[in-house]
């Protein structure tokens, strides 16, 4: 029967294409041992978050090219993916498959802990001892149970960016060092009709960071460490953080309708308010110097008035007054990535490469010695404070993992909106930990 033969042919075609498809997806499985390093040609796939054209993307392209020039057996295939897409969908999905990228963006903390528990990551403790020594305690963010799984290339702490000219006009003597002084500054700024503090509560995390800082002041370092590892939030200091925040919000230090104000990237954002002289302060991470620049109408004026001071201390609290919140960006290698991956990771954080990164002004470098390149006075004070920090607590939403992080941020925003309460934040965190 001719028909039968035709169906047979169709079947054959389908099977062949299926086989072909399967054949294409397999392939680069070989993992050379350390002594075979740079002997066989390897291709490293690299996923980072510099998706938009700009200094960051150009920089990574150059880093990859330079590394291949040094080691001709290594080809690097890179892909820049927007952060949210990379972190929330692309990476988790790719890590579930048998063919994840070899080296990829890693933010450390709770997410890394989960990835380690799922056996996704390569243990690089032995190979990176020197680098970790150079980075210091902050490298612990990319370690789980004492083992190193990734390295940061940028790192910084958060603090308050402020307008020096407005402070002078309001008659504020110097940057506040305690919350009482900060409250005093808020009153003085209101007296000269200036929005004291801009907050991008619309994006949730900029508002949540205020709570994080109250928690950092209210909780002992041990409590915070335990909370990060075990996601247990029974200590009353977490409720205290919410109470302190509520009292602070009640002094009305923020701009109107802050619940709809975005955090950064456009002139109507909290960033834009500070950059264009419409607000006096903003709590934000070390990257803010660059983002302020992008939304400022007059960059020269911004450069003159912008200053930075660490988050003030709270008198008689359990927290370490010299502890700071911070975080950074790093990379990790997949479990089955070739050994060259670790070499590339080390190359990225080597002082020469880091020096170039520091010169871009898009983030603070981690390697000792590379910071000499930084000229901006505000950034210099961030660097200085980062160095003087006794304990660097990773952003709580990253430290506790996305699930607790999101529930925590949502319920903190509810306090800002007037519908939440300190107790509800803790309750939501406990509930999310069980989800």
């Amino acid at each position, binding site marked *: 029967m001719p028909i039968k033969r035709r169906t047979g042919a169709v079947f054959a075609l389908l099977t062949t294409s299926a086989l072909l498809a399967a054949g294409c997806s397999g392939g680069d499985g070989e993992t050379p041992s350390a002594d075979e390093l740079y002997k066989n040609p390897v291709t490293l796939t690299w996923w980072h978050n510099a998706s938009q054209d700009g200094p960051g993307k150009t920089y990574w392209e150059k880093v990859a090219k330079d590394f291949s020039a040094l080691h001709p057996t290594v080809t690097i295939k890179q892909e820049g993916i927007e952060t949210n897409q990379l972190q929330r969908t692309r990476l988790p999905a790719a890590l579930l498959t048998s063919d994840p990228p070899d080296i990829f963006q890693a933010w450390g903390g709770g997410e890394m802990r989960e990835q380690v528990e799922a056996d*996704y990551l390569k243990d690089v403790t032995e190979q990176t001892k020197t680098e970790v020594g150079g980075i210091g305690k902050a490298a612990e963010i990319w370690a789980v149970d004492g083992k190193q799984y990734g390295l940061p290339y940028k790192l910084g702490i958060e603090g308050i960016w402020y307008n020096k000219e407005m402070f002078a006009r309001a008659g504020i003597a110097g940057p506040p060092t305690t919350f009482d002084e900060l409250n005093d500054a808020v009153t003085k700024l209101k007296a000269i009709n200036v929005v004291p503090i801009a907050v991008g509560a*619309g*994006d949730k995390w900029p508002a949540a960071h205020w709570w994080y800082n109250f928690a950092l002041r209210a909780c002992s370092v041990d409590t915070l460490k335990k909370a990060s590892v075990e996601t247990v939030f029974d200590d009353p200091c977490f409720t205290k953080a919410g109470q302190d925040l509520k009292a602070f919000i009640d002094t009305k230090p923020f701009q109107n309708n802050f*619940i709809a104000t975005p955090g950064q990237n456009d002139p109507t954002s909290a960033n834009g308010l500070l950059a264009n002289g419409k607000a006096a302060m903003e709590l934000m991470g070390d990257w803010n110097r660059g983002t302020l620049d992008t939304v400022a109408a007059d960059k020269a004026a911004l450069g003159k008035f912008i200053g930075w001071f660490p988050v003030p201390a709270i008198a008689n609290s359990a927290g370490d007054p010299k502890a700071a919140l911070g975080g950074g960006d790093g990379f990790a290698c997949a479990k089955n990535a070739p050994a060259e991956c670790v070499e590339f990771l080390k190359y990225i954080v080597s002082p020469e490469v880091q020096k170039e990164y520091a010169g871009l002004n898009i983030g603070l470098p981690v390697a000792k010695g590379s910071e000499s390149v930084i000229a901006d006075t505000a950034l210099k004070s961030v660097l200085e404070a980062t160095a003087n920090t006794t304990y660097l607590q990773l952003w709580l939403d990253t430290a506790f993992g996305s699930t607790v*992080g999101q529930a925590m941020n*949502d319920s903190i925003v509810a306090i800002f*909106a007037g519908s939440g309460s300190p107790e509800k934040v803790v309750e939501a965190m406990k509930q*999310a930990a069980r989800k």
Partner: protein
Amino acid sequence: MTSINQTLDPAGGASASPAGLRPARRRPFSRAAENRRKWYEIIGLTTPAIIVYVMFVLVPMGFAVYYSLFRWRGVGPPTEFVGLDNYTLAFQDPIFLDALRNNAIIVVGSLLIQGPIALAVALLLNRRFRGRTVFRLLVFVPYVLAEVTVGIMWKLILTDGGTVDALLRSLGLGSLVQAWLADLNVVIWTLLLVLTWKYVGFAIILLLAGLSNVPHELTEAAEIDGANWWQIQRHITLPLLGPTIRIWMFLSIIGSLQVFDVIWVTSVPAVRSLGASATMATYMVDNGFFARLWGYGNAVAVILFVISFVAALLFQRFLLRRDIEGAITTRRVN
């Protein structure tokens, strides 16, 4: 050529298959063989579409149902079976209930606001006047714009001290100024207006197409009988427009239940997470991807699907029945 060959074909096959081109040497097909051939043709022509449909619609749906039964954060394969817990959790979450309420507001609001506006504008644009084409085009523009563009545009217009506020103030209506996107009690109505602006053009175009199918003879006859314009619209045009209106309602309801992009872009994350502007779809993405509750997110997806599916079935059963029955009887007569 083909038609000649086909008439010569003893089997009288209507297909343009190579078989039809070599009639002389073929033995006539038996009825069974012809039937079989017809089935092979159906299978051959629909298989690619069916494969795509099964792979990209049915299989993912099956996976969604499967994953929704696990406590799973997307790291490693799902292992912790929790039965229907994720579904119970969803209905216990006040934010999800807010999302449901918002979807209901959008479904009903879209029908009640867009329906009358679209009908009025369509009737107006169906009359002959200068510049009619230009108006028809203008009315349709918002629908053609990409959702994200619309979202960003309205976000800028509605921002604190933005265009809308300035306009109201210059009209002496400053007291009406609201925190359009920040006030938790106002935001859903603001979004409903944006959605109306965006989708009313689609309703108008559908109704215009429906109106062009209303036979001119009927309205002319009514005119001769002395009916005025209003009477003609009420007793002739509207009843004949019934099927079009019902189809539009159907599409509007399903679209409102699944609405995502305009809401996602226009409303800010904080307001969404407080429930004020969340819909089932935004709630699903916020929880599934951003809180990384993959199992739970899948459960929300299944709930959204079931609600849409039931709404579609009920609508077909009670409102579209006449239209569908009409179609079936017509075929039977042939």
